[in-house]
Structure formats: structure tokens, C-alpha cells
């Protein structure tokens, strides 16, 4: 009897600890949601779990994923970036106009370098305005959206252009049967784990969580803010690169509706818009949720306006979800 008790006690403690730890993770809600949408999708699409369908999904997901990761870093740092879609567009038209269908390798490299630099510069403009001039993030990036879109229209007034097919084939590259998007996701997760455990990572969460406290603790809050926008600009440029590789042409409208879904992905992934919490892993889950829901809608054969409706519902759900969980928890206490 006595020994039994002794044996049982630590086990229950360990269980509750495990559950506590899991329920304490910010992306718990997102994981549950992902499981639900995966099940629904698998019901509608028979070959969902085949490598072919999976690879297709991953290639579709990659641009949104790169964009949302940049957005997540800005949001964790206490800001928001509405201009990411415009930067994607700008980089897309720059790449297309700088390359042409029969560009040499050197010209391709040059175009890519210009594209990436343009993205970083755009992020630096946002960052300088928000961090050093103390403009409102929402208003600032809303305004720069027009500027970057304007530049895109100026560079490429009507859709078109082409890129070398060798450039496009990079997107379909794989190593040991594992396709590029997987390697990129793995690399991003590794890089994020590293960054989170550096000073920068700590400063990022502190700046977003309580800027005054961070400042009092000698954290360079302004520089951290600035850097988040530069990172977001760079990630937007990478997104532009990925899109250009996958579709091979340019349009001054291509990225505009990606902004909203990047923010929704961040929120769905458990990162609060108030800043100071969340992370990149959850955001990635958020991106997968959105993409799979779109997939479901296209398989369910519903009129396209439903897609708009569902998108709206997702936004509301994403914003309400964490609050709902808190509400349920409080009830229980």
C-alpha cells in the first residue's frame, strides 16, 4: 500500500507538469486548429498525405511563410508592418525588369542583389520613421505602402516580363529528395532558435513587452525597433524572390493582398498584436492553417465569394481565439 502510493505520486506530478508545460506554450491553440484543418482537408482531398500533394503545399506556402516570419518579428518587437505586401511587389517588378528572359548568370545575381537591397532599404525607411521619428507604426507603414506600390507601378506599369528558366528551376531544387522549402523552414527555425538565445532576442521581447522597462534596463529600444523593420523588409524581399521564381513574371499588384494574411498568420500563431510574446514557430503553424483553409475552400467547390467571407471569419476567429482560451481558463479557476 505504502510503496504503491510512493510510486504513484511522482508519476501524477510529472504528468501534470507535462500538461502544464504544453498548455503554457503560446502556440497550443494554433496546434489544435492546425490538427482540425488537416483532418478536414484530408477528408476532402484523398491524396492529401502523398509526397506530391505535400510538396505542392510546401511550395505554395513558402512565400507567405517568409513574409509572416518577418511580420512576426516586427509584431513581437511591439510594431506592425502593413507595407510588406508592397515591398514584395516592388522586389518582384525590380527582379523582372532587371533580368529579362535571357539574362546571364551575372545579370541574375546583380538583379537579385538589387532586389534584396531595395527590400532592406524599404524596411530601413519604415524603421527609421517608427523608431527614430516616433511615427505611429500603423500609419507609417500604411503610408509607405502607397510609396512602395507607386515605385512598383513606375518600374513596371503593366504586368508582364519574364525571367530565365534556370532561375525559375531553383525553386524546384531538392537535396536528398527533400525540397527547397523544407530546407528553408528548417534553416529559419534553427536561425530563430539561435537569435532568440542571443542578446538581440532578449531585447526584442523586452522592447515589445514593456518598452519603458526595457529602456530603464539599458536596452537600446529604438535600435531594436529599427532592426525589426529592416528584417521585415529583407524577408519581404525574399518573398518577392520566391514568388518571382515560382511564377516567372511580374505585376505591380502581386503582393498587395499578402499583407493581411501575414498579420492573420502571426495572430493565429499565438503572437499577440500587443507585442512582447509569441514566436516564429507558431507563426509558421499559422501560415499552414491559412493555406490549408484556402485549399479546403477550393476543394469544397463553393462560390469564390465564400472565400472572402471565410477569410474574414478567420481574422475574427484569430483575434478572438486567445481571448476565448483565457476566458475558459478563468472559468475553471
Amino acid at each position, binding site marked *: 500500500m505504502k510503496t504503491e502510493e510512493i510510486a504513484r505520486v511522482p508519476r501524477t506530478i510529472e504528468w501534470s507538469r507535462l500538461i502544464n508545460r504544453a498548455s503554457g506554450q503560446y502556440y497550443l491553440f494554433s496546434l489544435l486548429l492546425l490538427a482540425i484543418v488537416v483532418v478536414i482537408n484530408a477528408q476532402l482531398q484523398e491524396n492529401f498525405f502523398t509526397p506530391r500533394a505535400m510538396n505542392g503545399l510546401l511550395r505554395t506556402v513558402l512565400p507567405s511563410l517568409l513574409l509572416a516570419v518577418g511580420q512576426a518579428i516586427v509584431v513581437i518587437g511591439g510594431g506592425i508592418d502593413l507595407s510588406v505586401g508592397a515591398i514584395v511587389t516592388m522586389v518582384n517588378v525590380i527582379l523582372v525588369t532587371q533580368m529579362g528572359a535571357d539574362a546571364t548568370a551575372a545579370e541574375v545575381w546583380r538583379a537579385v542583389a538589387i532586389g534584396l537591397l531595395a527590400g532592406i532599404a524599404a524596411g530601413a525607411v519604415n524603421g527609421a520613421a517608427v523608431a527614430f521619428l516616433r511615427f505611429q507604426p500603423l500609419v507609417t507603414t500604411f503610408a509607405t505602402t502607397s510609396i512602395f506600390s507607386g515605385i512598383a507601378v513606375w518600374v513596371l506599369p503593366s504586368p508582364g516580363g519574364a525571367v530565365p528558366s534556370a532561375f525559375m528551376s531553383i525553386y524546384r531544387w531538392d537535396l536528398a529528395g527533400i525540397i527547397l522549402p523544407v530546407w528553408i523552414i528548417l534553416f529559419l527555425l534553427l536561425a530563430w532558435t539561435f537569435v532568440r538565445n*542571443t542578446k538581440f532576442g532578449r531585447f526584442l521581447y523586452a522592447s515589445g513587452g514593456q518598452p*519603458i522597462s526595457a529602456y530603464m*534596463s539599458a536596452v537600446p529600444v529604438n535600435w531594436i525597433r529599427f532592426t525589426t523593420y529592416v528584417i521585415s523588409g529583407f524577408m519581404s524581399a525574399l518573398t518577392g524572390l520566391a514568388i518571382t521564381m515560382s511564377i516567372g513574371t511580374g505585376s505591380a499588384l502581386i503582393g498587395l493582398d499578402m499583407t493581411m494574411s501575414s498579420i492573420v498568420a502571426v495572430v493565429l500563431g499565438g503572437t499577440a498584436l500587443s507585442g512582447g510574446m509569441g514566436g516564429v514557430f507558431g507563426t509558421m503553424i499559422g501560415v499552414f492553417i491559412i493555406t490549408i483553409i484556402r485549399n479546403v475552400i477550393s476543394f469544397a467547390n463553393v462560390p469564390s465569394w465564400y472565400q472572402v467571407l471565410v477569410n474574414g471569419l478567420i481574422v475574427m476567429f484569430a483575434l478572438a481565439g486567445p481571448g476565448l482560451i483565457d476566458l475558459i481558463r478563468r472559468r475553471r479557476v
Partner: protein
Amino acid sequence: MNGVTLSAQNLVKRYGGVVALSDGNLEVHSGEVVTLVGANGSGKSTLSKIVTGVVAPQGGQLLLNNQPVSFSSPLAARQHGIVAVYQELSLVPRMTVSENIWLGHELVSRSGLVRRQEMRDRTRALLDLFQGVMNAGVEPDTPVHQLAPSDKQIAEILKALSLEPRIMILDEATASLDTNQVKRLFELIGEWKKQGKGIVFISHRLDEIYRIADHITVLRNGKTVASAPVNEIPRRELVHLMIEDVEIARHNGSGPAPMQAEVSLKVENLNTRRLKDINFEVRRGELLGIGGLQGQGQSELLLTLFGAVPYTGSLTVFGRPVQLTSPRRAMKEHIAFVPGDRSTEGLLPVRSILENLMLPSWRSYGFPIRMIKARHDAQQAAQNLKLVMESLDAPVTSLSGGNAQKVVLGKWLLRSPKILLLDDPTKGVDVGAKGEFYKLLTELRNQGTSILFYSSDDEELLGLCDRILVLQDGQITAELQGESLTHYDLVAASMGSTGQELPYED
């Protein structure tokens, strides 16, 4: 550690037109505890903020070992070994105890990674300093938002300590600590002194000051008025140093309140999260002041009486027991509340004066609203208040601070309240408007309204009130009336000793 001397000389700091510090002086040496003492608004916080680089002075100089220095940021002060313990100001709620303690000076390995385990271990060693007096279960990995206020304060102290300062400034660090925690802190301060640290200790509690101080520096109205070893400043002398010797003008000419008048509000055994065992009565036509240091529960008391804070205990209004569960219930009992922060709690800034005045009263104007009558009543109210305005339709933001405050009061007067609660209503109001405001309050009182009046301005309380309750840590620690209604007694009571304990000798 070598000896170090920090000396602040003739510091001046103005915020806009307000002079926070006109001649601040402070000197602290290694191995010494200097306590900085002063009444509300005497410039203590400003002085400590200048010394730690949070704000820049507009005049005067700082000397470190006789070398002039200036700190452009908290980081600069920190690099010179000067660190402040703030009141929960520097903790990030979502981060853990360990992350917070090392925030800004993380231990980093050569590869750029944060040395988590080492920081955790050192955090544990720091937490061990307060072992036995903190709540159980505070670990290096506990998120700060889960900590009790006292444990947060201890985390703040440990955070400052982890910087290995040469001079440490504790700004009311004991305010949220219990007796055992204070005792442990004082033992630790004793050790730090031996290690050669210089300590600046800011506190409002007289007995703490005399337990820990080697040297006392007194501020009054932004000036350092005394600085001497502790044995040269006895307790009663200290209180005198803190208050100015001016005659306090009575704004309230008509003598003491009729003590036989009907009791309008009776509070018995009132408890909330911050208030403990509050008992008092107010009579018709009485102006009852609520005093004490800032943030001792005064606002909470008024909010509770307005039904905005859950409470236990019994309230009786005009002999009838009532349950004040919401502001609406309180309004039905003819209780009105004038909040302290005009712009956020008292007014709708972009709307017109008319709308602001009528907001609590629209219900009694029918459906659709009888606009002509409403306008007439508002005009009447504006006249009674002597409101200086363009027209009733001008936005309320076009009024001066004093006139805007009259609108906040006026909107409740239209409901003719019997009990009026005022939460520091004259903050940021110019002197002229204050005078009119006082006249208005006195008139209301003479008409039989019971007024509960909290003010952070001691002179105003003494000038207006028939009686003053002094709050400390959510408890009524003294009641001043008649003979004891003096500045000396008010300050002494605020700091934790009653006038009786401090014989007044001239």
C-alpha cells in the same frame, strides 16, 4: 572596492513651467546609508532620476570622486556603478525572473549565445538572499507577471544588485514589502555597507528612516534644506524641516460642521483588496478630507464608495443599509464621483460643453430628449459654476484647466448629489480657478452636501476640510480635527506616527 563619493550640487529641473527641483544637493560616500526625505512633490524622485541618468538636469553639477560627470542615459550612470531600484518600473511582465534580472547585461558566451544556465544559477543565488521571506515557488523561470507585488519588488532589488553597483539608490523600495522582508533587506544593506557600497534610501516611513540611516538629507519644495548625520536630526525636528512655516489660509470661513447633523454615510468594516478595516461616518454639511502620502488607497476608497470596486463590509446611506455593486447603484443613492484624471475619466474631450454637462442626466429628459429644457438647465448650471466659455456648443477642450474641472463637477451637480466624492480634483488647476473651486465646494457644504475630498496637496486639505482621515497602506491611521488640524500633524501622521507620540515643543 575603492572608496567612492557621489555628490550632486545645486541641481535644477523644470518640467514645462513647473519647477520640480530648484536647488537639489545630495552627497553619498562608500559604506554609508543616506536617507532622502521630503513631503509629496518635494523633488525626491526628480533628484534620484537625475543621479541615475533617467532625466537630464537644467542646472547644477554631478561630481563622482570630485570629477564632474554627466549621465545621458541610465546606461551611462550604470557604467559608473550607479544603479537605482525602481518601483516595479523596470520589469517586463512576460519575461521570467532570471531574464528580467539579467536584462540589458546578459551573460553571453563567445558564440553570441546567452548563457541561460549560468544566469539561472546566479539568479538562484540571488534569490537565496531573500530565502524564507519570499513566497514559496519563486524560481528563476517563474514569469514575473505571476509574482506577488512584494516579490516583484525583491526582483527589482536583485536586478540592481546583479549589476554590482558601487552606489545603489532605493526609491521607496520598502513600500510593498512586509516586515520580515524589510528586516532582511536591512540586514543585507548592512552587509553592502561593509562591502563599501554607498546607499541612498528614499522612504516615507519614519521608523525605517531611523533604523537604517547614517545621514539624513531633507528636501522641501525642490530645495535641499538640511543634510546632517542622523543623530543631529531628531524625529520631531525632521517633520518640521519637511514642512514650510507658512500660515495656512482657511478657505472655509463658516466654522466647524454641525456635529449634531444627520449622518449621511456610515462605513463599517470596509475591506477591499487594498483597504483594511475602514470605519468612519460623514454628516450632512461636512467636508471630510482624506489625506496621506500618494497611493495609500485614497482613490480606491472613493471608488469603492462609488460602487466601482468589489468590497466586503457594510455601508449605510441616510440610515439605510445599501449594497453598492455598480456606479449606477451609487448614483441612485445620490452619490457622485469626480475623478482625478479629467481628460480620460471625467470628460469627453472632443464633445461640446453641453453634452459633457448633461451626460449623466439625459435619462431624466425623456424620449426624444427635451432639448430646450436641457439647454436651459445647462445654461443655469454654467452660470452657477461661473463657467468662462464661448458658448455651450464649444468643445470642452477649449476651456482652461480650472473651467474644465468645473464642468466635471457640474455634470454631477445637475443630479443634485447628497454625497460628493472628489479624487484629487485640483491637480493641474491654476491658483485662481482653485479659489473659485474652493468657494463652490464650501457653498455645497453649507447647503448640506456631504463631501469626501482627497487631495495630494496638504495645504488645500488643511484649508478646506472640517476633519481629515489619514490613510497609510489602506488603513486609517489617524483622524485629525480641531486642534490637531495642522500641517505638522498631517505630515507626521502620513509618515506613520501620530501627533501624540511626537510632543510638539517650541
